[in-house]
């Protein structure tokens, strides 16, 4: 890297353009009339293509140069100024490109997948908006700004999961995802507050120079980690992700595989310097639990998308473990590779679902096309999709010559390096990760077997054709980048150009790990083949150990009870207090009213009455009664005499 790189105007333009195109897509999607809604899809894809090109320029220009930073005051409050800033380094430039690129591919895919959908404008609008928000997280050089985009991402995710909101499950799942994310975000906000209290800055570059106070830093980093747990669907806030699969499949590919759930890992890598050793341990353990849980649960699922969702959980867990092991490079590498192959898997699964749906539509046969028990033998009917599935599935499983092998290798190497010499609990983590990688192979190939091999059952009588080219092209591109060649020249050495350039750590490469990993994976492949017919029918696994129910029982219920209690308290005490206050005010009002009537009005009336009394009194002198005149005259004379003579 050179010392100070001056960025051209063109770079800035491209940076702004990369962010502006998705936003433009979002805005334009509302302006196109309902009648020509197909224009929306094409236009949005085109705009995203432009955005991808712009981000490619950004990546090209920013790669291996000193970070581009831009900062200006956003608002000031109580004498503190809050700045908003951009921070583009290798990681964020690469991430920006991947996000925009995958988003473009998903847009393109959606043109075919969502054709004829009633809410297509809303769909593409929210897709554009999501892309913009996600890009915001990536380029933001400021935690506060990150948080804002973080929330926007959550919102657009909510909108997209609930795209088919007329289905109760979708509405439920979107609500759920939003609320569970909110729980994590509360922790994130607390972490941000602690950071602010200590550094009076949200700027990531400035925070790096912050003196470390271990206790507070641990708390702050754990708070931020809470947000990451929510967004990246880590244990214990993972349950929303499998449920979110009711959304459109491209959305699952984009949001719940490639970008949004990766945002947590990305942020974790970005603020890695904030994490102290204890909190990193927490991170590693949480990641490990998630990885295991996801892998085991994926084994038992029947729904294609659910399998992929649990697999995503598991892979995210692996990334988090790598981060906890102090290797953001490995985590990010896995994040990037995973973004491609998992998006590819989702798109391929979407292709299967889409084509079967359409075939069902024609033949009026109805069964759950997402259930792999109804599938089988589709290889003949969908050879292209099968190929894609195999390539991306191999990458997920981590077979050699795929990107997944490289990144998994990186994680394992990092863990081996992290556990150090001797026996400790870290070895357990390593073992768990090894088990996860083993299980990954098993469930991946079981799924592929069930869908494409064997004999056709329910689909036998359906006329199934390959998806249209507009859907096949993105799948092909993504499958292509699932190969090793894009990440490292040597298929057995993960420390290629990308790994070296996304972190400062010296590449540590152990050939033994690579070989062991390869052997391990192939062993797993064999196991997968022999157990392909075995149904892991445990309802525990199917429901992710009933964690949902556990949450419901032990978290939701007490919270609801607490809510009822506080509601009661609110009703009884606070409302009572308010009522009492209101009543007291009423009483005071009555008192003042009485005072007004009796004293103030009384005073006035009294004066008037006194005047009237005096008047009638004096008038009585003029009563026309002669004797009375005499009386008063005499009275006056007496007074006069007494006054003068006595």
């Amino acid at each position, binding site marked *: 890297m050179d010392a100070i790189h001056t960025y051209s105007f063109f770079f800035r333009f491209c940076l702004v353009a990369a962010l502006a195109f998705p936003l433009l897509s979002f805005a334009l999607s509302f302006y196109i009339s309902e009648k020509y809604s197909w224009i929306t899809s094409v236009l949005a894809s085109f705009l995203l293509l432009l955005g991808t090109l712009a981000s490619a320029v950004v990546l090209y220009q920013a790669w291996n140069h000193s970070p581009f930073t831009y900062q200006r005051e956003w608002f000031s409050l109580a004498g503190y100024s809050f700045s908003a800033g951009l921070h583009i380094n290798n990681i964020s430039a690469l991430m920006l490109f991947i996000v925009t690129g995958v988003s473009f591919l998903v847009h393109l895919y959606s043109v075919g997948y969502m054709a004829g959908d009633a809410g297509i404008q809303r769909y593409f609008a929210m897709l554009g908006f999501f892309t913009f928000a996600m890009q915001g997280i990536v380029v933001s050089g400021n935690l506060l700004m990150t948080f804002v985009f973080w929330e926007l991402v959550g919102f657009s995710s909510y909108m997209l999961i609930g795209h088919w909101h007329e289905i109760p499950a979708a509405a439920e799942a979107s609500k759920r995802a939003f609320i569970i994310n909110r729980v994590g975000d509360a922790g994130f906000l607390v972490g941000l507050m602690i950071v602010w209290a200590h550094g009076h800055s949200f700027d990531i570059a400035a925070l790096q120079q912050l003196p470390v106070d271990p206790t507070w830093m641990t708390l702050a980093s754990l708070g931020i980690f809470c947000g990451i747990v929510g967004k990246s669907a880590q244990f214990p806030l993972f349950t929303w992700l499998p449920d979110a699969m009711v959304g459109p499949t491209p959305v699952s590919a984009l949001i719940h595989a490639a970008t949004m759930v990766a945002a947590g890992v990305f942020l974790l890598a970005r603020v890695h310097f904030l994490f102290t050793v204890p909190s990193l341990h927490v991170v590693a353990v949480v990641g490990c639990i998630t990885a295991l849980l996801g892998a085991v649960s994926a084994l038992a699922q029947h729904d294609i998308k659910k399998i992929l969702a649990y697999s995503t959980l598991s892979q995210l867990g692996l990334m988090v473990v790598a981060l906890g092991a102090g290797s953001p490079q490995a985590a990010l590498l896995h994040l990037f590779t995973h973004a491609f192959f998992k998006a590819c898997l989702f798109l391929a699964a979407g292709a299967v679902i889409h084509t079967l749906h359409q075939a069902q539509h024609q033949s009026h046969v109805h069964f759950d096309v997402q259930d792999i028990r109804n599938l089988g033998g589709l290889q003949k009917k969908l050879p292209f999709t099968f190929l894609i599935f195999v390539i991306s599935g191999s990458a997920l499983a981590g077979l050699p010559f795929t990107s997944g092998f490289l990144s998994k290798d990186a994680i394992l190497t990092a863990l081996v390096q992290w556990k150090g010499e001797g026996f400790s609990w870290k070895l357990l983590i390593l073992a768990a990760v090894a088990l996860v990688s083993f299980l990954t192979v098993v469930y991946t190939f079981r799924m592929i077997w069930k869908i494409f091999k064997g004999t056709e059952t329910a689909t036998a009588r359906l006329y199934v054709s390959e998806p249209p080219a507009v859907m096949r092209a993105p799948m092909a591109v993504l499958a292509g980048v699932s190969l090793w060649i894009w990440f490292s020249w040597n298929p057995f050495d993960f420390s290629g150009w990308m790994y070296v350039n996304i972190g400062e750590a010296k590449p540590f490469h152990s050939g033994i790990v690579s070989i062991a990993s390869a052997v391990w994976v192939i062993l797993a492949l064999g196991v997968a083949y022999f157990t392909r017919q075995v149904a892991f029918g445990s309802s525990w696994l199917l429901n992710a150990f009933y964690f949902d129910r556990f949450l419901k029982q032990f978290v939701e219920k007490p919270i609801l009870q607490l809510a009822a209690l506080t509601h009661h308290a609110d009703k009884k005490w606070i409302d009572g207090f308010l009522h009492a206050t209101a009543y007291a005010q009423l009483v005071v009002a009555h008192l003042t009213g009485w005072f007004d009537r009796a004293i103030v009005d009384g005073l006035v009336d009294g004066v008037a009455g006194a005047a009237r009394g005096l008047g009638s009194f004096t008038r009585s002198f003029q009563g026309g009664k002669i*004797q*009375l005149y005499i*009386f008063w005259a*005499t*009275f006056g*004379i*007496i007074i006069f*005499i*007494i006054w003068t*003579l*006595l």
Partner: protein
Amino acid sequence: MNAPSFLFYFFEIIAAGAAGALLFVRNVFYGALLVIAVLLALAGLYILAFAEFVAVTQILVYAGGILVVIIFGIMLTTRLGGKPLVIEHTRSISATLVGLAFFGTLVYLLSREPFEAHPAKAAASTPLDTTQTLGVLLMSDYVLPFETAGILLLMALIGAAVIASERKSKKV
């Protein structure tokens, strides 16, 4: 106590008693009679104060003239049927209070003053025949007031007659 002193207190008691009874009496005719009693008692006192002419005038004019006129007035204002004219009292309390206050004030003021006889004049001889002296004075020193009083009487006579006369024709 000699005879004149006795007579003096006798007349005083009669006058005071009749005046006091007048306060409570409700029949106008009795009231008029009580006033006559007071006037006669006062005539007696005048005599005791060496004012024979005044006393005689009192009896003639007051008791014999004014009171008779008043009794005529009583008779004229009483409705037909011969029922005695009984009246009510009003403002008894305030009237009593004023009366008492006035009386108290006067008594207090009078009692403060000694009212001794003028020593120089006391030596001078009192004219034995005040009636003659008064007659001379009326025709000499007080002739103008005397004539004026005559005119006043005439005017009162004519005025009374005019006022009291019936003027039905002018009534609307």
